[in-house]
C-alpha cells in the first residue's frame, strides 16, 4: 500500500467515521456569533490599550492605598475590593443528536411542575442559551448525572433571589423557575445573567445558589410550553421553550 493507497483508505475511513453537519448548523453558528460576538472583532491595539489602562489603574490604585502619603508612614490598609465585571452572555447551545438519557418528551403547556433527575450531588460546569428554529433553549451542564430538578412556569417575570430575598425582575412577561437540588456552582465562572433577546427566552438569570440548591429564573415573552429533558455526553438538563399554540 503506497501513499495513494493509504490516502484512499484513510479518506474512506474518515468519511465513514464522520458526516456533514445538518443544514441548520450554519444558521445556529451565525446566531451564536451575532449573539455572543458582542462588539465584533477585537483589534489587538484596542486590547493592548485596554490592558494598559486597566494595568495603570490597578497599579495606581494599589500605590494610592498602600504607599504612605503625607509623611504619616502608616499603611492605609487594604484597598477596596475590585468589583467583578459582568460576564457577557455566550449563547452556544445547539440541538444535539447525542442520544438522550431519558426519552425526549413532547412540549408541555401546563403550569404543573416537571421534575426528574437523580440523587447525587454534582457540579455545574456550564450554562448556555440558544435560539433554534421555533423554540429557544436553556441548558445547564453538570460533571455527573443530572441531579434532582423541578421546572415550573409562573405568570410573571418577577423572581425572588434565594438567601437575600431580594426581588428581581427579568425581561419578559412570564417566567419559568428552575430549581436544582444537589448541585454546586462555585466552580462555574460563566455568565449568570443572559439577556438574550430571543423570541421566547428573553433572559435567564441565576436567582440563587445556596447549600447545593441552585435556582435559575427564565423570563419569557409570554406563556411558554416546555420540553424538559436530560442528555448525556456531557450530562445536561435541557429546557426548550416553545410559544403557546
Amino acid at each position, binding site marked *: 500500500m503506497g501513499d495513494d493507497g493509504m490516502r484512499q483508505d484513510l479518506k474512506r475511513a474518515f468519511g465513514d467515521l464522520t458526516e456533514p453537519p445538518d443544514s441548520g448548523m450554519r444558521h445556529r453558528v451565525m446566531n*451564536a456569533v451575532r449573539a455572543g460576538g458582542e462588539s465584533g*472583532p477585537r483589534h489587538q491595539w484596542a486590547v493592548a490599550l485596554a490592558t494598559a489602562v486597566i494595568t495603570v489603574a490597578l497599579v495606581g490604585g494599589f500605590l494610592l492605598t498602600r504607599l504612605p502619603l503625607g509623611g504619616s508612614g502608616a499603611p492605609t490598609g487594604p484597598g477596596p475590593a475590585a468589583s467583578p465585571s459582568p460576564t457577557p452572555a455566550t449563547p452556544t447551545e445547539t440541538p444535539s443528536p447525542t442520544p438522550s438519557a431519558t426519552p425526549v418528551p413532547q412540549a408541555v403547556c401546563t403550569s404543573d411542575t416537571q421534575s426528574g433527575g437523580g440523587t447525587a450531588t454534582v457540579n455545574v460546569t456550564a450554562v448556555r442559551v440558544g435560539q433554534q428554529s421555533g423554540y429557544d433553549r436553556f441548558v445547564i451542564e453538570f460533571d455527573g448525572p443530572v441531579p434532582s430538578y423541578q421546572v415550573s412556569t409562573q405568570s410573571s417575570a418577577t423572581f425572588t433571589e434565594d438567601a437575600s430575598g431580594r426581588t428581581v425582575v427579568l425581561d419578559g412577561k412570564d417566567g419559568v423557575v428552575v430549581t436544582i437540588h444537589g448541585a454546586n456552582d462555585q466552580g462555574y465562572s460563566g455568565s449568570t445573567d443572559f439577556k438574550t433577546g430571543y423570541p421566547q427566552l428573553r433572559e435567564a438569570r441565576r436567582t440563587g445558589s445556596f447549600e447545593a440548591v441552585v435556582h435559575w429564573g427564565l423570563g419569557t415573552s409570554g406563556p411558554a410550553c416546555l420540553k424538559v429533558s436530560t442528555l448525556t455526553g456531557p450530562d445536561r438538563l435541557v429546557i426548550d421553550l416553545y410559544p403557546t399554540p
Partner: protein
Amino acid sequence: MEVSAIAAEQDLRQAAAGDTSAFELLLAPLLDPAYRLATVMLGDRGAAEDAVQEASVKAWRKLGGFRGAAPELQAWFFSIVANECRMTRRRRWWSVFKFADLPRSETPTADERFESLDIRQAIQRLPADDRLALYLFFYLDLPLERVARVLGVSTNGARSRVYRAARRLRPDLGPEEIPNG
C-alpha cells in the same frame, strides 16, 4: 489574483471591520470540514457542533488580530476548533472514546469490509492529536505547512506527527511515503 480571491480578501477586510455577513461568507465553506474535524477529535456529534460553535464565536472575536490573507483563514480557524476540542476533552471524562455515536460505513463491499473496519478501529485507538494530523493531511489534503499551522508545530514537526500516526496504522510505512506536502 482571481476574482474569487479578490472577493475573499474584501470579505476578510469587511469581516475584520465588524461585518457579520462577510464573516459568514468566509466561514460557510469551513463549517463542514471543521465539524468533521471536531467529530474526529471528540467522537461525539453534539459536542463537535458545540466546539465548532464556540470556535466560531472566538474566531469572530479574534478576527481583528488575524494578519494573514484569506486563504490562510482555513488553517487559522481549524487551529481554533482544534484548541476548543482539546479544552472540551480536558473538561470531561473522555477515557472511553465515543465513536460509537458515529455513523458506520453503510454499504462496504465484501472485499472492503474487513480492511475498512480494521482501519477505522485503528484510527479510533489513536490519540486525538494523531487522528487530527491524519485527518488534515490525508482526508482534507492540506499541505504540511497548513497541517503545521493547525497543530501549532513546525512543518517538520507536522511531518513527523503525520508519519508517526500513520505508522501506528501501518508499521511498515517508510518515511519517504509521507510526501513533503
